[in-house]
């Protein structure tokens, strides 16, 4: 009998086939390991006090309660500032960063992809090198510069350092590269200004890339406690992530654990929800993410 030629299961199959089971069997345990801590946080956050004290500890909550969330909102920090103040700060900071970083990186991305100017190639190359930039490596000079600029204890120190994200610009630029030049040339002939082209043509076409920067920036800013710890002394200007940090750092008592878990859940859920809502757009952007 003639041996049949090898036919793979095909990448990106449209529907389920039993040959896929072996991959599922390998991925499942890993996925379970990834999921376990998150399931744990979720259960822990809804545990009433007596369940937190159970020995041996139980993984799943038996009588879920919102008690931890209630006490989290009632508690005020040692400085007498209510939690809502921190939450408010975080929302404002995150909103500002998202708006400004989308504006800044899409504008730069448009110019670096579609406009001609002398520094274009150099800037693109520098930005590719900057993808390798590890922020915490230069925490000390960064601190000195922020101090020199008088940004210590200034609300904008939460915003400004997060506006230039090389990865964000890189993804946006790659995405704009896919847009045909003819489209832009046609609009120029029709008399559109560069700003109109950017605003009316480019922005609507690169929504997936915008969604991606939104997610990346959101993750960094919303989760960042470092800015408050390092650059802010005035408690009124600190953020929610910082507050969560102090809670969890002092949560050696079992009762504190429930609150800390509730706080972690509040920190984590917005990230997850935004990602689920935008995941198809992110995948669309990532398809163009390659460094050539």
């Amino acid at each position, binding site marked *: 009998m003639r041996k049949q030629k090898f036919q793979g299961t095909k990448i990106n199959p449209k529907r389920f086939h039993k040959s896929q089971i072996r991959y599922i069997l390998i*991925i499942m345990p890993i996925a379970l390991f*990834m999921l376990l801590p998150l399931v744990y946080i979720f259960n822990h956050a809804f545990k009433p006090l007596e369940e937190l004290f159970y020995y041996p500890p139980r993984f799943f909550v038996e009588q879920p309660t919102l008690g931890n969330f209630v006490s989290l909102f009632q508690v005020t920090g040692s400085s007498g500032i209510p939690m809502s103040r921190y939450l408010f700060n975080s929302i404002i900071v995150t909103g500002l960063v998202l708006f400004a970083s989308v504006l800044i990186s899409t504008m730069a991305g448009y110019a670096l992809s579609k406009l001609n100017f002398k520094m274009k190639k150099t800037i693109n190359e520098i930005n590719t090198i900057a993808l390798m930039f590890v922020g915490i490596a230069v925490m*000390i000079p960064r601190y000195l510069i922020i101090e020199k600029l008088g940004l210590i204890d200034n609300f904008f120190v939460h915003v400004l350092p997060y506006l230039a994200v090389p990865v964000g610009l890189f993804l946006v630029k790659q995405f704009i590269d896919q847009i045909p030049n003819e489209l832009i040339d046609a609009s120029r002939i029709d008399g559109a200004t*560069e700003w109109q082209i950017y605003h009316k043509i480019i922005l609507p076409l690169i929504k997936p890339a915008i969604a991606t920067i939104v997610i990346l920036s959101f993750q960094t800013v919303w989760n960042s406690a470092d800015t408050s710890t390092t650059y802010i002394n005035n408690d009124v200007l600190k953020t929610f992530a910082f507050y969560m940090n102090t809670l969890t750092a002092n949560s050696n008592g079992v009762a504190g*654990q429930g609150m800390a878990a509730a706080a972690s859940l509040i920190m984590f859920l917005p990230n997850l929800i935004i990602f689920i809502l935008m995941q198809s757009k992110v995948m669309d952007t990532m398809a163009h993410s390659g*460094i050539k």
Partner: protein
Amino acid sequence: MILLNSLLYRLKAKKSRGLKDQHTIAYLFVSPYLIMFSIFIVIPVIAAIYLSFTYFDTVRAPILIGFGNYINILTNDDVFMQYVIPNTLKYAIIVGPGGYILSFLLAWMLAQLAPRIRTVLALIIYSPSLTSGVTMGVLWRVIFAGDNTGYLNSVLLNLGIIVEPIIWLQSQDFLLTIMIVVTLWSSMGVGFLAMLAGILNVNQELYEAGYIDGIKNKFQEMIYITIPSIKPQMLFGAVMAIVGTFSASGIGVALSGSNPTPQYAGQLIVNHIEYYGFYKYEMGYAAALSVILLLIVYLFSRFAFKLFGSKDE
């Protein structure tokens, strides 16, 4: 924004659409990014390089001392040589290349699955990278708690594997391993998504052609078709893996709650920089360590570029 709009409009109205005009507009478009990029990325790097050649205690002005800091790091810093370098290397090699290979294999296996189950599994695998240091702190500190209420201790005690609870996070033997596990857990991030998207977009005809040319199994298919087709994504993923590895490397202090970590068990170069900068105020010395770290990251990345970059560069 309105201001910028009108400014651009005036610019356009004044001159006819010459090349010079487009230059000016282009610079206006890039300048906000360039300014932020310079202040918070370029200048700190330059400042780090400059400070690394000085003695600077933040009170008096920096004094140039040539290569003094570097010589001290290499000859006098016992902690650096005995703990920081071996720890950093062990951590970086397992989390960097190890995590990278793992995320590629996961992405590759996910690409073999039907859309719905793939999306769910990809979401689960990606979700830990959405957590922050804050979330991880609580989470892992309870799981690895040192008394018998800790989940891991409780499970191991019940199974009879250990007889008394282990103080995981203060332990010289376990801290680094725990750091590696935790970082790997949260390392399936942007690079993982990029590779998954890349694999899903490989032209199906390439595979058909491959079968005709005599590809015999899935492994050959991966090596000869998939990987060469997604080289750019592989490179992006590699750079993200390297950067992610070093950016997350402060985790030891977050887990153990102290800098330096107990018996330097989880002391990595990032913690060493922080310790010298913010605890001992030896800014010049810390800056020299920063430069060394940036060089390490750069060398790792160059290697990735060699491996996956296009040849014409």
